[in-house]
């Protein structure tokens, strides 16, 4: 059996062993790695570049990814996460966050927004979901 098949994921030779990254315990017992990768590409980095970096980060040992709907790149990051999971990384070893954007604070808009992020990221649950800002906007979802 090749080395790659013995490993849960083809970590780079110079990677940090994900098992060596300390984790903090959340109130319900979940364990979050003490460092994560941010995924906001700002106004200078494309979604494709961010998604490629997520894949590279997983090879380097990252397991914690901080995402958000408003970053506009969750479908692309989802493709990278699928690659990571299909290669053998266990879902429970990943810690994936997303966030509710300000235009979806209407009572009927929250769950569909969450489900869109879940679908875009290609997952069947998220580890953490945040209210991105405590300030809603009034623009209806349909016009965004």
């Amino acid at each position: 059996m090749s080395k790659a098949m013995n490993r849960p994921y083809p970590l780079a030779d110079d990677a940090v062993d994900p098992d060596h990254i300390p984790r903090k315990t959340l109130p319900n017992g979940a364990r979050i790695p003490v460092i994560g990768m941010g995924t906001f590409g700002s106004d200078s980095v494309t979604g494709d570049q961010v998604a490629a970096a997520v894949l590279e980060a997983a090879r380097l040992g990252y397991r914690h990814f901080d995402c958000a709907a408003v970053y506009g790149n969750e479908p692309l990051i989802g493709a990278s996460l699928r690659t990571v999971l299909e290669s053998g990384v266990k879902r429970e070893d990943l810690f994936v966050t997303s966030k509710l954007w300000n235009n979806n604070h209407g009572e009927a808009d929250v769950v569909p927004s969450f489900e869109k992020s879940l679908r875009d990221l290609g997952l069947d649950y998220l580890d953490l979901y945040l209210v991105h800002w405590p300030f809603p906007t009034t623009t209806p979802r349909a016009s965004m």
Partner: protein
Amino acid sequence: MTSRAHDAKPYIHENYMTVWRQLESLVDRGLVRNIGTSNMTIPKLELVLRDARIKPAVNEMELHPHFQQRELFEYVVARGMVPIGYSPIGSPGRPERDRTPEDTVDVEDPVIVDIGRRRGVHPVSVCLQWAITRGQIPIPFSVKRHNLLANLKTAVSEPLSTTDMAAIAAIGKNCRLIKGQVFLWKDNQSWEDLWDQDGRITPT
């Protein structure tokens, strides 16, 4: 700086709790394991902690050596939440709208540079090591392989000494970079109004 968005609305606790109850329902359905807040203040968190059935597990907030938010950080930790720190290296790639002439640069601070020199690491790594040693979770962004790797390595490196932590504690400049001015809900407000600086929620 970009002016406010014309559809921005103030914090109304009742509306926030409507959102929060939907998040709680997602936990009940097993679709999300933890729920949390972001960009909050102590007076807002007081109300959420009072009224939430499932308490926030984390608060994500801007945290870097020049913006340490000591009071909010200690509040969050004391109530069992984990602080997640964004812009942990001072967000050198932040959007143009979030740049002002008064902003300071963490990685050029002589204290940070000196600690990096002694440890043989880049000042960026010192900022991340400070975050981890202090107990917040930094979420640095990069698309460059060597930066991604150097950032991750701080999680398996020697924590900063008590002396170095004390030195960095003394360089806070209250320099908020992500001011949020687009979220101002009426004219003639300043971005400080978003952050409840006098300890109560800014009136609508």
